[in-house]
């Protein structure tokens, strides 16, 4: 019983982290049809800036994290304009190539700036320790992660279902050409969505640093993990990413608890089966 609870709490919080990092990737890939292998880089940049702000500038956790999100957004906007816009119309192969190139540059920059060692983020006292729920204790950090994940998905639902921007975004995902004909400024929508996705990735990177430790090689190491969530969830689907992230998070955690010797074989096996049966992903439309 205790084991099941541990699996569920650890799995759900891992899944929430995966969701926060991957959802931006899923939406931008659904929107621009761009295979963006560099997305994990924004999570790493968020984590690296937070580490720098806390250790070098001596800021407390929350201002440091907030500052990092702002910095990542400010970085992602010109990147979208200069580096990504030319590759939207190219084939998959040049996109893979260009975004791997961008990933390499991100890794090299962070390694040049911060060194290639682990960049730990010290959590504030309020997020350390554990909470007694009566029947068992939970690490406080996990609760924060789960709450943050729930807030993110509720916020995204509100944004896509209830706001004017959301209507335009959904129209642009469905058919960019028609959306543009109706007077929707799709390239602006692309840019805003890209920056939002980058900010969410940075948030996931900062909050998830306990589970996916930040260092310069982070984007390369976890690239496949984030892409798996997107592919399994289905391109462009927020709900799909959420379901896929939670399911894969719980599956991976359960496999680690129950069959520690088998490593990632269940994770990739599950992905193989799901994509073999449903090539468009769980909630993909095409």
């Amino acid at each position, binding site marked *: 019983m205790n084991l099941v609870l541990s699996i569920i709490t650890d799995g759900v919080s891992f899944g929430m982290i995966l969701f926060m990092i991957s959802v931006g990737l899923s939406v931008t890939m659904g929107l621009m049809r761009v295979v963006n292998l560099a997305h994990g880089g924004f999570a790493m940049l968020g984590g690296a800036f937070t580490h720098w702000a806390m250790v070098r500038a001596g800021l407390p956790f929350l201002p440091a994290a907030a500052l990092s999100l702002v910095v990542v957004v400010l970085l992602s906007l010109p990147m979208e304009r200069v580096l990504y816009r030319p590759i939207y119309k*190219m084939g*998959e*192969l040049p996109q893979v190539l260009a975004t791997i190139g961008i990933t390499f*540059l991100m890794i*090299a920059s962070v390694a040049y700036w911060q060194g290639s060692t682990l960049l730990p983020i010290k959590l504030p006292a309020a997020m350390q320790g554990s909470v007694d729920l009566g029947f068992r204790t939970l690490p406080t950090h996990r609760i924060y992660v789960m709450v943050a994940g729930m807030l993110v998905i509720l916020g995204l639902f509100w944004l896509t279902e209830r706001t004017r921007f959301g209507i335009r975004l959904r129209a642009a995902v469905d058919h960019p050409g028609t959306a543009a004909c109706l007077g929707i400024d799709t390239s602006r929508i692309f840019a805003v969505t890209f920056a939002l996705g980058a900010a969410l990735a940075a948030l996931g990177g900062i909050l998830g640093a306990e589970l996916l430790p930040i260092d310069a090689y982070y984007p390369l190491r976890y*690239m496949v993990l984030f892409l798996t969530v997107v*592919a399994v969830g289905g391109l462009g689907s927020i709900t799909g990413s959420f379901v896929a992230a939670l399911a894969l998070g719980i599956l991976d955690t359960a496999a680690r608890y129950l069959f520690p010797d088998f490593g*990632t074989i269940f994770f990739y096996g599950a992905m193989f089966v799901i994509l073999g049966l449903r*090539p468009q992903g769980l909630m993909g439309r095409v």
Partner: protein
Amino acid sequence: MRRALPFAVMLVVAVAAYYAFPYNLAFLTRIVFTMILVLSLDLLLGVTGIDTLGQAALYGSGAYAAGLFAIHVWNDPLAGLAVGALAGATVAFVSGLFLLRAHGLTLLMLTIAVAEVLKELANKLDWITGGTDGLGGIQMGPVLGLWDFDFIGQTGYIYAVSVLFVVAAVLSVVTGSPFGLSLRGIKDSPARMRAIGTPVGRRKLAAYVLAGAVAGIAGALAAQSTALVSLSVYDFQLSAEAVLMLVLGGTGRLWGALIGTAVFMTVHEVAASVNPFNWLFVIGFLVLGVVYAAPRGLIGLPEELRQILRRLK
């Protein structure tokens, strides 16, 4: 005559490299077997239009098969190559049956998954593969029963270059044959090829199996010349770098694969010896430069320059 010219150039370069860098033969040999791997990738990405980020699955299986064959059965190099080719082709056939119906991101992810699952299996079956320690103790017999592998790697280099010649010749014939043309047709438009009666699914599988055999040969050659097979033969990074080398050189024309591999690995070696992080900067800019400025790769550069000159006139 036109077909023979690139082979002559290749021969001259290979001989020149042999005499120019007599103490770097191990590195040159590494370039040569990586070239074979990238050639196999070109058959998929460049010719048939099958996107993959999991070429390591085929390469690694060839490497393990050849290594195990040499240790337990027979240490003849050529027999080892055949076993490696067979292993790569088998993995390609079995996985291709599932993979090739998918395309786009799904296909990329499935090919990655195959390599990762095989890596985990090789790790798990450590009583056969040596697990994380790697498969050591590979001692090859003489090539054709005549030439022993020596310490400096002269035999290894000449042997690897000969294999590269044979593979490149076979692939050059195959891609020029009606079969190869139908593969190029599938790349451009599968629907039209189906409409004129080409069995698209079977042709793609055949191309995948052939690429598997070639990648298996590359893996076997790697196992034989380094005398070691480690889990890293199944690394995602290997598959990704193979794609980089191919697109850097130029896809679909085989010679691009060779040029891309040589440039990438030389730049890597030189930049990394100056500073381990340097090469990421260098390669990153190189790759972006190719994508934005020379979309057809290094092999397309002369053509691009000619067009610019013509416009200037």
